């Protein structure tokens, strides 16, 4: 576990220094909101109704654009060898990399979400359920996304392959995430089942992602 904690500490520290990925994720997240607003038009009522789904969709997209670097950077500079070499169970190290990805790309987006929600005119009662759903659901994206990132490791056009592989796997998290955010805003009885199912998907991702990701990394480490 020490080795895994060291990896999380290193990755998060790298992400939050200049040139790191955390700020990029937040900028992309805000930019994507701008793209949606420009495409839909300045109709505040329309934006207000679409704010929660847009926020979830762009949170998903910003996870997607950073996932291809999840293992690739370590692969290129040789430090992935070091991580594999020191892992008693590679699955745990993949889990650690995913946790670090969420801390450095997912969590900043969740924290930036209220500000971006203001731009999209999210109704006041929508904030708490939206933030809760993002907090519970976005880790699933980092966990499940590790599969595609590990499979595409070392390929030249990795980023597009990661997106193609991850997209279908992200569908349930998106569905229950938006479902919970919307249901919570109107005090619908659907909120509780949606947020619980979302949590279940995150836990499931934390199991499947590291197992499949570690298997793919073992194959791709071959020189």
């Amino acid at each position, binding site marked *: 576990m020490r080795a895994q904690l060291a990896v999380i500490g290193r990755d998060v520290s790298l992400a939050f220094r200049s040139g790191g990925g955390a700020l990029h994720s937040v900028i992309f997240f805000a930019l994507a909101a701008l793209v949606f607003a420009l495409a839909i038009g300045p109709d505040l009522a329309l934006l207000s109704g679409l704010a929660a789904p847009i926020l979830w969709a762009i949170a998903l997209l910003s996870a997607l654009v950073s996932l291809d670097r999840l293992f690739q950077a370590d692969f290129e500079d040789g430090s992935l060898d070091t991580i594999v070499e020191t892992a008693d169970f590679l699955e745990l190290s993949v889990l650690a990399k995913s946790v670090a990805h969420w801390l450095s790309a997912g969590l900043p987006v969740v924290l930036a979400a209220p500000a971006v929600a203001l731009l999209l005119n999210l109704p006041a009662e929508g904030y708490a359920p939206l933030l809760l759903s993002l907090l519970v659901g976005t880790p699933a994206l980092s966990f499940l996304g590790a*599969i595609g990132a590990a499979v595409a490791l070392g390929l030249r056009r990795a980023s597009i392959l990661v997106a193609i592989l991850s997209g279908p796997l992200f569908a349930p998290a998106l*569905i229950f995430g938006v479902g919970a955010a919307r249901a919570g805003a109107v005090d619908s009885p659907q909120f509780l089942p949606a947020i619980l199912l979302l949590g279940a998907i995150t836990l499931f991702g934390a199991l499947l992602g590291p197992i499949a990701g570690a298997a*793919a990394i073992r194959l791709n480490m071959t020189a």
Partner: protein
Amino acid sequence: MSVFDFANPERFERLARPIAVPTGALAAVLIGAGLYYGLFNSPPDYKQGETVRIMYVHVPAAWMALACYTALAAASAVGFIWKHPLADVAARATAPIGAVFTAVAIVTGSLWGRPMWGTWWAWDARLTSVLILFFLYLGYMAVWAAIEDKARAARLAAIVAIAGFINVPIIKFSVDWWNSLHQPASVFRADGPTIDGSMLAPLLLMALGYTVLFIALLLASMRNEIAARRLMRLEGAPGRPVSTVRKE
């Protein structure tokens, strides 16, 4: 068992060659009969009218879409766990066939939806699930296309197939849940329990025909792949240096 062991594929070739043509012919007969009964020799639906005939193409295709993905995942698991090269070949060959069945299901679903819903595409729960399944197929095939080393591609694609297969029920469940929030119950009910016997016969004929067609295409594709690999091996063999280690 190693990737160089071609004893198995040779036995496969001996088994597959004599049944290749008969399975193709049988598929043609079954599908021909199914289409005849479905399109000309069955009653129109009291509600859907003549458009119900699209069902005879659509519903078995949707079944095959899922059945092929199941076969793909099963072959991938066998190939991954037991390093069976024939299973890898089977998995790879299954994917495009399954993807075509999936595409047929999507297109015919859309064609059927036009008169029924008045739109080319409705986000019906089943159609949406089948669409996501189509993307799972595309992802699987993209892995094969992206990785040059075919031995590694086989194992990575197997991981993708198995991970995708585990997610299929979750995706299906979430899409059903999503759809129930926004729309009344699915309009698709042609394969429900209310189906009439006169419709069931052509439906089952088509399903059987598709299955035999799948087998015929799979065998043809696998034989092709094995022949191509053997050819590559033969052409690639001379001039390939192999290192040995000696101590000085």
